[in-house]
């Protein structure tokens, strides 16, 4: 059904992105819960120095962003891009993010832990993300000295992250599983085997646009490789189920399937006012249609970009002003019409 030539590589049909993050603390300082302002500032300076002159990272150019001196809108934008956590964006003093220009590496300093190192790759590339994040972690350890205990591993502020301090997650687009309700079974199974499923923006966020983040909960007692392999394996299985179900849904009733996709495209192309939530829902159908080979003329990457561009902060940055919700919905509709009408058919 899908055209051979445009078949996406690296599991992009289902996997949107792969992320690995490591939680680390400097052994010479108390955790963020007990550190003074001055200690926080010292940590910031040390991490900044260590990262900016890391020989192993010479290929990367970093920006140093102090949360307190960023406007709320700019902080929100970083959240939308998954470069910082929503909690971090609250902008407390003594917090900074050091982010590579391409967004692949992001280091949050003085979040819950002194360091949260994150590497993000597109599609299903969890092992690559781990390789980069792991080497970044050990390079920094040599310079900064992370709190480590032989029996507990890397020590973290909250015992939920202790040991490896690793969180491996893959963002999956699961429209068919959601549509049919089978997603419930998937969520239950994941819960039983210690795998967390969250929405688009992590903890407590909803699964907007049928996007689900699959990640490990256990960080102690397993090796990093086991954790990465475990998450790769479960996401692979979920992806296979999703792909089979898409084909089955189409086979059972092609007209209904196409109707859903073309209606969503129609709405996106015609709407004059559209909320972020509705757009994500409709874009999810368009993405499905593209992967099933029903819609052509646009790359998945462009659609990913559009998904980001319609977010409130991004939209306001693009139009260079503070927009009221109504105005946002109007600008969003405009932007989507422009992007989709030009390309897709």
């Amino acid at each position, binding site marked *: 059904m899908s055209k051979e030539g445009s078949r996406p590589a690296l599991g992009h049909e289902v996997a949107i992105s792969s992320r690995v993050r490591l939680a680390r603390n400097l052994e010479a300082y108390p955790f963020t*819960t007990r550190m003074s302002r001055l200690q926080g500032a010292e940590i910031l300076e040390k991490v900044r120095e260590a990262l900016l002159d890391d020989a192993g990272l010479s290929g990367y150019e970093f920006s140093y962003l102090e949360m307190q001196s960023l406007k709320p809108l700019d902080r929100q934008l970083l959240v939308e891009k998954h470069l910082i956590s929503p909690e971090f964006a609250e902008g407390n003093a003594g917090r900074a993010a050091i982010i590579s220009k391409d967004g692949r590496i992001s280091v949050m300093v003085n979040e819950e832990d002194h360091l949260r190192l994150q590497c993000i790759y597109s599609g299903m590339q969890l092992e690559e993300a781990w390789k980069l994040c792991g080497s970044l972690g050990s390079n920094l350890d*040599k310079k900064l*000295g992370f709190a480590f205990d032989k029996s507990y591993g890397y020590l973290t502020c909250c015992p939920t992250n202790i040991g490896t301090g690793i969180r491996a997650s893959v963002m999956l687009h699961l429209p068919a599983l959601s549509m049919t309700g089978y997603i419930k079974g998937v969520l239950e199974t994941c819960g039983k085997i210690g795998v967390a499923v969250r929405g688009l923006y992590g903890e407590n966020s909803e699964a907007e646009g049928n996007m689900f983040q699959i990640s490990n909960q256990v960080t102690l*007692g397993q090796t990093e490789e086991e954790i990465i392999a475990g998450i790769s394996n479960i996401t692979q299985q979920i992806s296979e189920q999703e792909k089979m179900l898409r084909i089955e849904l189409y086979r059972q009733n092609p007209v209904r399937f196409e109707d859903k996709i073309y209606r969503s495209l129609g709405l996106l192309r015609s709407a004059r006012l559209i909320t972020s939530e509705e757009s994500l829902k409709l874009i999810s159908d368009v993405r499905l249609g593209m992967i099933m080979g029903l819609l052509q003329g646009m790359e998945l990457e462009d659609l990913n970009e559009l998904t980001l561009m319609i977010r409130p902060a991004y939209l306001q940055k693009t139009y260079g002003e503070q927009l009221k919700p109504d105005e946002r919905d109007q600008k969003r509709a405009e932007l989507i019409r422009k992007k989709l009408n030009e390309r897709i058919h």
Partner: protein
Amino acid sequence: MVCQQCHKRKANVHYTQIINGKKVEMYLCTQCAAEDGAMSFNPQLSLVNMLWGFPGFGDSAGYAQFKQPEILRCNVCGMAFDDFRKGGKLGCASCYSVFRDNLIPILRRLHGSAEHTGEMPERTPDVKKADEGGQPAEAVGLSDKIDRLKAELSSAIESENYERAAELRDRIRSLESSGNVNGGAV
């Protein structure tokens, strides 16, 4: 077992109370226990409280009992174990050693294990190599740990908590033999 109060619902709370040195044991269902005031329910269930709340958890007699939380305080950062119970976050790396005995059951519940098997920092000497050559930094850390445990051991003996004392004794022995402290002359 059926609740000893309502004789209807399943008992899932083992409640022990000591009044004037006399031990009273009750098996109650959650509702009766709550109504009875046998348990003070914390409306804000923190992660730690929830973990601690599993019946038959560790060696505690019931839901509402904790191992000497009131006196446990980290000597490095000042964090009390009670603060951790409320907030779920620790204060510094040393908290993990000071609260070790109380943390191990929590880690097991969270992770199914309390032993790190993942990567180690390159600067950390390998455990297996520890007796091949002198590892001064390690040995100091270890003997500190043992000293701390010994202090805990004496206070456990003083308070006639023999079960805990036995645990501590075993821990000290295993640390002493594994770490080869003081050139092995233990």
